[in-house]
């Protein structure tokens, strides 16, 4: 996957580049908006990571121009402004995701993978990981043939994890997609729910499917 990172702060750009490269991405870096527009014109990127605060032309203006020239490359906005409604504003302008600074690298990588595979996301109504199945039409979950009772929230969490099976899901991402929280509540809500979910889908079964990636988040995956 080829990605463009637009970030004027050199150190941030550098560790983002390193992290993405170690994850197997091909990474181009620009330090200002005009360079980014030029680069996006000549190279088809799979994802663009765009910092909002750039010298000269800012990220939102780059985003607007890209969308005006019908460039549909998935864009993830980064922002240190931390404005509550900035996320909404960015998404309205055509961004695909938004991550406030400081962010966790694992979170960034997880989101970029999700963006890069968009369209390729598992949209099937019947989700399956190992012997765990989730029927999104009847909202029934089964493992090894046994019915699993889930609350509404647990169901949404499991559906999200199963749709992103094999990919890391960061805490912020889970809070956003499952709870629709646009703020970091500073609670261990996600961890507590994951623990409950584990009791239901993993405790009495082998292999264990919910994996903890310390300091980063969770992943639902059949161990190799």
């Amino acid at each position, binding site marked *: 996957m080829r990605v463009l990172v637009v970030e004027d702060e050199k*150190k941030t750009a550098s560790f983002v580049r390193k*992290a993405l490269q170690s994850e197997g991405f091909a990474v181009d870096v620009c330090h200002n908006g005009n360079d980014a527009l030029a680069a996006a014109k000549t190279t088809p990127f799979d994802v663009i990571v765009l910092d909002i605060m750039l010298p000269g032309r800012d990220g939102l203006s780059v985003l607007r121009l890209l969308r005006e020239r019908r460039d549909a490359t998935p864009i993830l906005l980064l922002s240190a402004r931390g404005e509550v*409604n900035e996320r909404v504003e960015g998404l309205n302008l055509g961004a695909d995701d938004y991550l406030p*600074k400081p962010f*966790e*690298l*694992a979170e960034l990588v997880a989101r970029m993978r999700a963006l890069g595979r968009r369209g390729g996301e598992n949209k099937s109504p019947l989700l399956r990981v190992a012997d765990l199945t989730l029927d999104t039409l009847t909202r029934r979950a089964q493992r090894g043939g046994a019915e699993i009772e889930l609350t509404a929230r647990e169901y949404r969490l499991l559906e999200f994890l199963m749709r992103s099976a094999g990919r890391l899901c960061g805490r912020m991402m889970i809070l956003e997609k499952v*709870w629709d929280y646009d703020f970091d509540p500073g609670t261990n809500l996600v961890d507590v729910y994951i623990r409950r979910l584990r009791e239901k889908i993993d405790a009495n079964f082998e292999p264990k499917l919910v994996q903890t990636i*310390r*300091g980063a988040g969770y992943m639902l995956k059949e161990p190799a």
Partner: protein
Amino acid sequence: MTIRTRLTLWYASVLIVSLIIIGLGTYREIDEQMRHEHHREPTEHAISETSEMIFQVGIPAILLGLLGGWWLTQKAMSPVSKLTDAITKVHERNLREPLPRTGSGDEFDRLTEVFNDTLARLDDSFNRVREFTLHASHELKTPLTILCGEVETALRDESLSPLERERLISQLDELQRLARIVDGLTLLAKADAGQVALQLEPVRLDELVRDNFADAQILAEPQGVQVELPACEEIVIHGDRHRLRQLLLNLTDNAVKYNQPQGRVTMNLRQTNGAAEFTIANTGPGVPPESLPRIFDRFYRGDAAHSPMVDGCGLGLSIAKWIVSAHQGTITIESTPGQLTTVTVRLPLTT
């Protein structure tokens, strides 16, 4: 004694003294005249004539004078009461609104002018503090992003020993806590500067409370805390869904965190006196009375809360208070240490 009463009394005494002087003068005059004209003892006649004059002219004059005096002082002092009323309404948010001047250029006008200047200077200082907090939280974000990123990058190194890994993870935890504090500070600084706009829409408050109740039960489970929701009336208010959810989660998180093991959290949502009233009570160690007035202050934590079990950013209740105020509501806290601590939020209903 108010200045007005004092002035009226002085005025009255001056009147009475002058009346006595005039009376004495009149008596002498009449006495003299009588001695000249009739060459006989005139004293009695003079006294009766003088007292007649005093009663007929003097007393009404005094009463009239008193009345006039009261009216005069009233008029003279009215700018003071107006000023007092206006000053009572001054608080840190409306320092820019100048107090009304009479325009007469008198001493009170001058006083108002000086006071307005002082307010403007105060406002400048407040703004500078707000801007400073805002800039400081922005400036902190870039190095924080870099630090988090570098520690995470270091963690990717497979050759780390378990001890090194543990150390790095602990650093990352603290960095993330710092990041949450900076986030909270940024939000409050922006709110102070009036830069956070609410996305107002009709919101079913009871649905948000029920949703939050489900999360609360799960959050409270590890500590064996029981969560109850005896009343949840259907209520629609005009509000910002995200911020209201943040408010509910903040309060719930606090009620669970500052509870005792096997304790209880009771929530209620009712409609009372034209307002939506949400209460959340917990059976924690409580808040000592001396801490109550400061409980919504930034970074303020009662001693009871300084338990190693509790980690938070110290801004939760300040953020809660901001969210409530932004919705034109009120938030109050009552606590009987060792028994029950109740937070009450009142939000105006959609009219």
